[in-house]
């Protein structure tokens, strides 16, 4: 596994909501093994970017390439099959299914055995084993049989990441995975992300508000502002970036700290 | 020319008539998010109550039209306050099932109270009779309906856009939580809107007494499906859409019946499916 192998790139990717531009001719490239964070003040276009890359929003202009292949018009599930997956800022799990079944769905999807209407689910030994391993990894084994909707908020967030991970993505976008978590849980989750990233199976792209975490965790930081990239580079470089400081020294900066400091 | 004008007029009057019934259905869906299957039954009750006032209490069409639907409002209040209120949070099928239960109950009650046979209304005074238009007679009452339809539409529009109550209703329809956060008593508002929607349906029923010229215990069942189609094509919850859809459908089916006898339900439903496929939110619905 070598660095510098481009997984996903965008060419002049643009998006508008009415007259508001949320992505302006973005040319970005995400490389294998580089833990990237995307930051920016509220309304900078972070979530929009993830939505465009993962197929959750149709691309209005420009194109998206995955491993050199144009996937601009690909539906979500096809992108996931290729290895682009995500978690959501707002919880997006299967609330009435058990924790185990939550992660089983993506695992089944990958195994290609999900169209079998008469096979017993308990007979899917390999899928079960893999799902249990995954729960172990995100630390949810102890609640594997609980109904997902009944978990604590922190556990639900873990599950959100777990379900995304279960799709075994090459490139995984985590949209504010720690939103609403208490500091202890937050550290725990980010630690496991760091570990998983080192494990090298998936490349992570993180959207995060907590600057400390972003700078300590990431290999690369992208700063978005009003749909434009105003900074892109290693954390140290970004810290020194004048434009970024300018943007973050305004109200927006304090705003960011207020939000993240609330917990 | 004579033919086309009359076909148009027939279409306009039937379209406006459907609009009157569909308006309440649309309003209730728009604000409460409930598909009121029993709307046709309230229409029927409106007709029967108006008929009763007209025949047995005051032989005056206007009084019948005023008092009949008001009685139905009382029924609507009971339905909302004691039953419907408890299923808002449940899924769509439960709401349909509940309102369906009321269809059965009301249809049967009407049969018990007013008898199984059809009833025909007494004279309605000055609105009876016809006027010649291009050498063919056209009923005054249908002209009246053609006038009442837009009148109701404009009144509704003014009420929703220009009054304080209307603004609150619109606020509640777009965001229930927000409305209750700014101090609107949402449950009471819902009751009010439901009862008002029922009043519109019952008004349609009251107007139907001379229009259809016949009251039968199952009369709500034929109208509800037409009102549904209109509400869906117009965009569920959009009054403007329902108005236009009713107009288009009325004129279209009138022309269809006259010039393309093969035209029937099939094409109406094709139209409905086509609209749903191309613009799922309907002609004027907001994409929720």
């Amino acid at each position: 596994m070598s660095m510098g192998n481009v997984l996903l790139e965008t060419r002049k990717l643009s998006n508008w909501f009415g007259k508001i531009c949320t992505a302006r001719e973005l040319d970005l490239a995400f490389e294998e093994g580089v833990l990237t964070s995307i930051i920016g003040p509220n309304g900078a276009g972070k979530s929009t970017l993830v939505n465009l890359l993962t197929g959750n929003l149709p691309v209005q202009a420009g194109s998206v390439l995955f491993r050199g292949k144009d996937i601009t018009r690909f539906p979500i599930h096809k992108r996931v099959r290729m290895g682009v997956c995500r978690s959501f800022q707002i919880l997006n799990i299967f609330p009435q299914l058990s924790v185990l079944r939550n992660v089983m769905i993506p695992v089944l999807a990958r195994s290609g055995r999900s169209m079998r209407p008469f096979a017993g689910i308990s007979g899917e030994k390999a899928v079960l084993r893999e799902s249990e391993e995954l729960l172990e990894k995100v630390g949810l084994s102890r609640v594997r049989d609980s109904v997902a909707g009944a978990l604590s908020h922190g556990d639900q967030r873990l599950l959100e990441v777990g379900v995304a991970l279960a799709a075994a993505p090459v490139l995984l976008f985590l949209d504010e995975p720690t939103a609403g978590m208490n500091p202890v849980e937050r550290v725990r989750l980010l630690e496991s992300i760091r570990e998983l990233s080192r494990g090298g199976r998936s490349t992570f792209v993180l959207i995060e508000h907590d600057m400390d975490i972003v700078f300590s965790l990431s290999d690369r930081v992208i700063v978005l502002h009003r749909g434009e990239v105003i900074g892109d580079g290693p954390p140290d470089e970004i810290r020194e970036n004048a434009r970024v400081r300018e943007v973050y020294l305004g109200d927006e900066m304090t705003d960011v700290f207020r939000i993240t400091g609330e917990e | 020319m004579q033919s086309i004008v009359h076909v148009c007029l027939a279409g306009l009057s039937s379209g406006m008539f459907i609009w009157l019934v569909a308006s309440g259905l649309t309003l209730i869906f728009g604000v409460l998010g409930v598909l009121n299957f029993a709307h046709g039954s309230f229409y029927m009750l409106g007709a029967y109550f108006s008929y009763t006032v007209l025949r047995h209490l005051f032989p005056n069409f206007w009084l019948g039209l005023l008092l009949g639907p008001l009685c139905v409002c009382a029924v609507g209040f009971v339905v909302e306050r004691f039953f419907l209120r408890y299923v808002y949070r449940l899924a769509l099928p439960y709401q349909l099932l509940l309102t369906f239960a009321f269809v059965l109950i009301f249809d049967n009650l009407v049969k018990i109270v007013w008898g199984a046979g059809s009833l025909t209304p007494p004279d309605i005074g000055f609105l009876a009779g016809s006027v010649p238009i291009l050498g063919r007679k056209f009923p005054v009452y249908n002209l009246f309906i053609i006038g009442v339809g837009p009148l109701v539409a404009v009144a509704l529009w003014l009420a929703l856009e220009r009054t304080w109550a209307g603004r609150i209703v619109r606020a509640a329809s777009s965001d229930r939580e927000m409305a209750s956060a700014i101090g609107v008593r949402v449950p009471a508002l819902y009751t009010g809107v439901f009862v008002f929607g029922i009043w519109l349906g019952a008004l349609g029923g009251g107007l139907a007494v001379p229009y259809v010229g016949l009251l039968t215990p199952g009369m709500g069942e034929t109208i509800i499906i037409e009102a549904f189609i209109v509400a869906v094509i117009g965009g569920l919850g959009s009054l403007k859409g329902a108005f236009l859809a009713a107009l288009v459908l009325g004129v279209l089916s009138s022309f269809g019946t006259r010039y393309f006898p093969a035209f029937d339900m099939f094409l109406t439903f094709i139209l409905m499916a086509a609209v749903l496929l191309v613009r799922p939110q309907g002609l004027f619905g907001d994409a929720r």
Partner: protein
Amino acid sequence: MPDDRVTGRLLRAIAVLAFVAALASVPLFAGKFVIYLAMRVMILGIFALGYNLLLGGTGLLSFGHGAFYAAGAYGLGFFSLHLSPNPLLGVAAGIAAAMLLALLIGFFSVRSTEIYFAMLTLAFGMMVFSLIWNARDITGGDDGLIGIMRESIPLFGGVKISISQDSRYYFLVLFFFLLSFWAVHRIRNSPFGLVLAGIRENAKRTEFAGLAVRNYRLAAFVISGAFAGLAGSLETLLESNARPFMAHWTHSAEPVLVSLLGGIQTLTGPVVGSILFVAMREIVQRFTENWMLWFGIVLLVIIMGFRGGVVGVVRQLADRARGPRGG
């Protein structure tokens, strides 16, 4: 814990066996009318069981399943009138016709969800109704397709099983009912069923699990259409006619009603709902001509008092009763 699970499984096996035995012995002790009603219950049960794969299983409210029921009925009708009177082949033809129609209608419908899906299926169902009604030369119009006979089932070696008697036809219906019950049970507990549940719970997440949600919806739609077709063809054999109103929306509403009555989140819900639906009406009708009124009131009570359907509520009560011991 494992002990509990074993006893649970044993109890369930006993319950299933007792249920099957009770059903199988209906023709032995019950009168003809009860046998007939039991068949109606089972046919409605098949319709509702399949339907509930869509409503309870996938979270889609279809208002057009009458069309597939009618496709099954007319499919069997045409097959047995023009090709072969073999009832089993006829049923197969009915199911095939229903599945084809479901594929066609589903292809257009599954892109929408919720109320739009309900309205689209309603529109398509009514188109089918209208087609059957108007294609008089082929379908007999509103008179329906009549004179469909219940011939014997040919087996290997020239042996034939006669099903013309109701008490015998009962077993064919029972066979298909149990088969459907088993099939729906398997589907609910299969990987495919889990994906459907995922779609019901969260379609977006299912898509982000790498699954083409629309295809799964379509598959569920076609499968439930197959059950509707089976029910339609069985009813046609029972009543020896097929009629346009089978495709009408009022008939499409029946499985919805039945599933909700029994409870959409359980396997047995639609079956219990079917029993209630048929038996309740029959009982009410014996006491009063105003059956609609009383039927409506009973419905009201069930919706207001038994939100999760009868089976769901009974199960909750049972859980509560068991509560202190388990906890």
